């Protein structure tokens, strides 16, 4: 896990959230674009988790850190499941919430990782 990689990840997650909001505003259900974006996000999150676990020794608050890490990995699949269940504009609405949550949680991960917890 590096600051640069996680920063890109935060940007990507925010982009997915934006696509979700736009899709919801256009009153469309989840389409292949959102599905692919969430899949990509999940792969990126798994890579981040791999890098983080490989160097977990440097982290002080291990319990919180691992909790956030697990949370980020679980959220995109849950969002996909939800997007498929709710075939209205509110499916992408949930996806937007989920992607934004991933962005915030990755931000917190980065703070803990760098030891800059406020």
């Amino acid at each position, binding site marked *: 896990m590096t600051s640069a990689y996680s920063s890109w990840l935060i940007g990507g997650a925010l982009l997915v959230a934006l696509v979700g909001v736009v899709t919801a505003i256009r009153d469309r259900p989840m389409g292949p674009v959102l599905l692919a974006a969430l899949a990509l996000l999940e792969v990126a999150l798994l890579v981040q988790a791999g890098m983080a676990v490989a160097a977990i020794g440097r982290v002080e608050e291990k319990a*919180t850190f691992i*909790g956030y890490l697990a949370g980020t990995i679980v959220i995109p699949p849950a*969002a996909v499941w939800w997007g498929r269940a*709710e075939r*209205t504009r*509110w499916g992408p609405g*949930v996806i937007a*919430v989920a992607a934004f*949550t991933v962005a915030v949680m990755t931000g917190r991960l980065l703070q803990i990782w760098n030891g800059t917890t406020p």
Partner: protein
Amino acid sequence: MTDGGPARGDAAVRSGPGRVLVAVYGVFALAATSRAGVQIATKFAEAPLAYLLSAFAAVVYIVLTLALARGSRRVALVACAIELAGVLIVGTLSLADPAAFPHATVWSRYGSGYGFVPLVLPVIGLFWLIRHRKPAS
């Protein structure tokens, strides 16, 4: 062949925008539970009151997530009211007596650490639940 009685829940509460509410509450249930869990497990003695409040907030969020997801209107209404009261009382107390809340809870300073979402959420929740009141239930 039920017509959506109380056992089955109110579908209007949990579909459409209700799903977004469930998602947000789910996130908060997760966040509050893990935060309270870590606080109580690792440093309970530092601020028992704040950490117990954290745990209480977590329980309220879990109840709300489940009630909204199942469409249990009455439970959700009560939990929303408790949540609103909680964030207002804890928010006020944390400003009036910061010494009692040396460590942040979800509801400290009206949830400023969480972008004031904890303050806005119960209002949206109550609005959503009341707007979807079933006529003559």
